[in-house]
């Protein structure tokens, strides 16, 4: 039995809260995975053909980038635990850099679709049939929502970096960094599912 009424700060509680929050995030995307599953089942040919148009190359690069960024943020937790502030800051800097790289790739990827008039509501896309409309609708919505999570994650990591700089996060009190790390891992994990669903399964 644990009681913490005397302490204002409790790292176990914070982490438990973060894990519960991650459940809600998974269910948020879970709803979309259901929509995807149903429409993939109903329009398997159209989904198969449309998926071949996406660039597996950019997708793979982005997957590697995110995996590496998860690695660097995990390393920064170890660094701060070992009181290596400089190393932690550098690793977080690299994480932010990776995140920005991911978004840049996404920007070019989306840009090329938009140039080809492939976006939800476009007349050209509507002409290609309902399966394509649904595939690209899902593609833009799910990767868009994921990109939004990347941006939120980057904002959190930036705040954490600033707090380390100001010594508000240190080897004694680093639960915020750990929680941002957890969030970042979740964003990474969701991409691990999005990547095969849109790029690889053809």
């Amino acid at each position, binding site marked *: *039995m644990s009681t913490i*009424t005397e302490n204002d700060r409790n790292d176990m*509680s914070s982490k438990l*809260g973060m894990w*519960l929050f991650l459940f*809600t995030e998974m269910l948020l995307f879970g*709803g979309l995975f259901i929509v995807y599953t149903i429409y993939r089942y109903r329009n398997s040919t159209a989904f198969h053909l449309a998926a071949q148009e996406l660039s597996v190359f950019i997708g793979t690069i982005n997957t590697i980038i995110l995996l590496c960024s998860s690695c660097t943020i995990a390393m920064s937790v170890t660094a701060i635990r070992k009181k290596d502030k400089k190393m932690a800051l550098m690793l977080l800097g690299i994480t932010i850099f990776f995140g920005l790289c991911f978004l840049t790739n996404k920007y070019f990827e989306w840009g090329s679709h938009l140039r080809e008039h492939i976006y939800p*509501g476009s007349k050209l896309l509507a002409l290609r049939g309902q399966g394509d409309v649904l595939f690209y609708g899902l593609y833009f*919505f799910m990767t868009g929502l994921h990109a939004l999570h990347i941006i939120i994650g980057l904002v959190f990591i930036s705040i954490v970096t600033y707090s380390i700089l100001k010594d508000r996060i240190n080897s004694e009190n680093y639960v915020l960094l750990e929680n941002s790390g957890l969030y970042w891992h979740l964003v990474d994990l969701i991409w691990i599912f999005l990547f095969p669903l849109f790029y690889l399964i053809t």
Partner: protein
Amino acid sequence: MIDQESIQEPSYLEYKGKHKGIFAWILSTDHKRIGMLYLFSILTMFSIGATIGLLMKFELIAPGKTIMGPQTYNAFFTLHGIIMIFTVVIPGLPAVFGNFLLPLMIGAKDVAFPRLNLLSWYFYVTGVSLVIISQFTGQGPPDTGWTFYAPYSFRTAGNMLPAVFGAFVLGFSSVLTGLNFLVTIHRMRAPGMTWLRMPLFPWTLYATGWVQLLATPIIGITLLLVAAERILHIGFFDPTLGGDPLLYQHLFWTYSHPAVYIMILPAMGAISEIISTFSHKVIFGYKFMIASVVAIAFVGYFVWGHHMFTSGMSGTALYSFSLLTFLVAIPSAVKVFNWIATMYKGSIDLQTPFYWAIAFIFVFMIGGFSGLILGSLATNIHLHATHFVLAHFHFIVFGGTGFAFFGAMHYWYPKITGRMYDSKWANTGLLLFFVGFITLYGPMFYLGMKGMPRRYYDYDEIFHAGNIVSSIGSWVLYSGAAIIIINLFYSLKTGSRAQADPWGGKTLEWTIQSPPPVENFKEQPVITKGPYSYI
């Protein structure tokens, strides 16, 4: 008995923090003050929603146009639904009484994340503001009903976006409250308070927390998809683009059915506390009560299809959902049985909260049984989307959650305010409320069986008599509610001082002074026995 001189510590009401005036409240992270913020916001929303309901019943007093046109009526039932569901009954008991009492009942100083708690209230206010903005901007108020059914929700000219985002933000508020309570219950129970020594109200909050956490994200994403459908025409729910409106209904009810259990579970918890206290007896079948709460929360996830029996599903799906719906009745009946069994051979003290609990059991049973009629496939075809559903729903949600809310308010009023209320007026109000309630919603069962659809502003002459009775009931109900609320406000000034434990309750919140001091407990309580230790 504690007299005024012996009270040393300033109560949470008198506490002077670094902020003055209203800021001492809206910037406070004290769970008790946040509970009060919710109470006043929710009472305000309830008054608005009830007034709209009253006007709708007045429109229905005679066939044809009485006071409003069809479009206004559509906007009214939409607003009534959004306000009552998303801003009153879903946050109702958890956000008000959960916030105030959860830490007190488990012997903690506050919830696990006090600042997040305050943030939840701000999300609530933001959501409410968005809903209100949707009424006065754009091309007219939303007119889809609170269910936002596709494809109408993205084809109507009504101003859907703010309403949909409002509901989304309210969902966020609900998730954060649930998350906060879960962590609080896991981590902050007083030493010695094992899971099986925890009172039932915290237990129901715990089950509710999980439902809030695991169901609300689904409505979140669904509402975002409706917004995307309106703005971007992504076509997931649009049949002309290959989408499926039925999928919307599935996603919507995957949340909105468990949401009914967010409303009713804490209500059951509060009623359990009241019945045990006023029977001066340990709750009958304590472990079965816990098991039934958990069972309702669990099975509640798998019954959403019963909202869609006439929408077009396979036979297998229909049978399964019907069977699962019947299963929910079992734990609910266990609870009713245990409440009655608790009273048996108890030393019953007939006070206002106990009357509320009795009234709750009565209307809840009618609501529950009518739910079985609707859960059965054959009768559902006849009764689907009629006034029968309307009656069933209001008996459960207003009769269940609403009665429990008022019951809880009368039960914990001395603890929260430090005053007693005038119980004569409280009982008069309750009597009017109860009679009005039955008169208002009772005839709807009959009207529904005769075939009167819901959500219509006009009806055939043959439904006239039932509607007159129902509308008269709405006036009685409304005046009852007014008496109750005015009495409680009036007693804030005039009521006699409350003792620490005016009802002889045995749970932890009654061991500290009324109103509670800022830090709740002078010394960390240590629990050595179960929650209802009457011998």
